[in-house]
């Protein structure tokens, strides 16, 4: 508005239709009909999303994270990740490259183009350790690049560093209320 305030105009019909569809999907999956809020959500532990087409990788990495007090979400490829990102935005994403339907590069590019997702830090974890693959990832805005198989200590150190850097950047962007 002219005074700088923001007026949100909602088109209710599509929102209601979407809500009905999501409610039916959640009930079909055996979940509660009401989902947790995505924006105002208060998290006791950072949420890390593991995106990898290997179920064993998702299970092992998930277990490593849970043991170190992270909450874990998983997705089996880029398309699955986008559906889940619609529900909850993680604090960080561990992302494989080679996946069916949508690979890691495509997902990273999509996220960086989405205002809601562009600030989610991404650590790529992949067996493709060549320089051109690394560079392509960094050109897309990926934060870190780890080769598989990863050392658990290295993974946890990088996650900690990236989350701290991200938190500092967020604090720096906040207006000074002092």
């Amino acid at each position, binding site marked *: 508005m002219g005074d700088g305030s923001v007026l949100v105009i909602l088109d209710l019909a599509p929102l209601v239709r979407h809500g009905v569809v999501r409610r039916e999907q959640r009930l079909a999956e055996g979940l509660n009909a009401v989902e947790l809020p995505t924006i105002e959500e208060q998290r006791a532990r950072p949420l890390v999303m593991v995106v*990898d*087409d*290997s*179920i*064993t*990788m998702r*299970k*092992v990495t998930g*277990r*490593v994270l849970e*043991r170190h007090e992270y909450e874990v979400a998983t997705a089996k490829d880029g398309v699955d990740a986008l559906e889940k990102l619609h529900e909850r935005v993680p604090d960080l994403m561990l992302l494989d490259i*080679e996946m*069916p339907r949508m690979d890691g590069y495509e997902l990273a590019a999509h996220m960086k183009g989405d205002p809601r997702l562009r600030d989610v830090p991404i650590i790529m974890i992949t*067996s493709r350790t060549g320089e051109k693959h690394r560079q392509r990832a960094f050109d897309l805005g990926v934060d870190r690049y780890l080769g*598989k*198989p990863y050392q*658990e200590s290295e993974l946890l150190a990088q996650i900690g560093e990236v989350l701290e850097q991200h938190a500092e950047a967020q604090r720096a962007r906040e207006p000074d209320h002092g």
Partner: protein
Amino acid sequence: MEVEQLQRSFLEYIAALFREGFLDGQFSQLQLLQDESNPDFVVEVVSLFFEDSERLLNDLTKALDQQNVDFKRIDAHVHQLKGSSSSIGAHRVKNACITFRNFCDERNVEACLRCLQEVKQEYLLAKTKLEALFRLEQQIVAAGGAIPILDEFS
């Protein structure tokens, strides 16, 4: 005494699996992720590996049986099998997959068929040996003992 004998047999057996290259350090990492809150973690992950591998090996068999072989699809399957075998420490399966991928790059059908047989063989060997290992674990637990962890560096 029975528990101790079972534990010794277990350690000897698993040491042999490492020595013969069936398992690598990643398997030890899996064992370290198992605790009271997740007492069956290793069996769960390895069971997932078995299911996933058998699906992928079936897909590979079908893919290589086609008139027009889709090497990109085959490469994707082998990549996935390589990743999952690596994640549980199935070292020889992983290495067989690496060789397989090289021949996919060369688009060599005959070589890929040989590699598929090699991967299947290594997978079946790994499965047999891991199932024997888990039976030993069950015997130890049934006898009231704890599963020992092999210290690779001792």
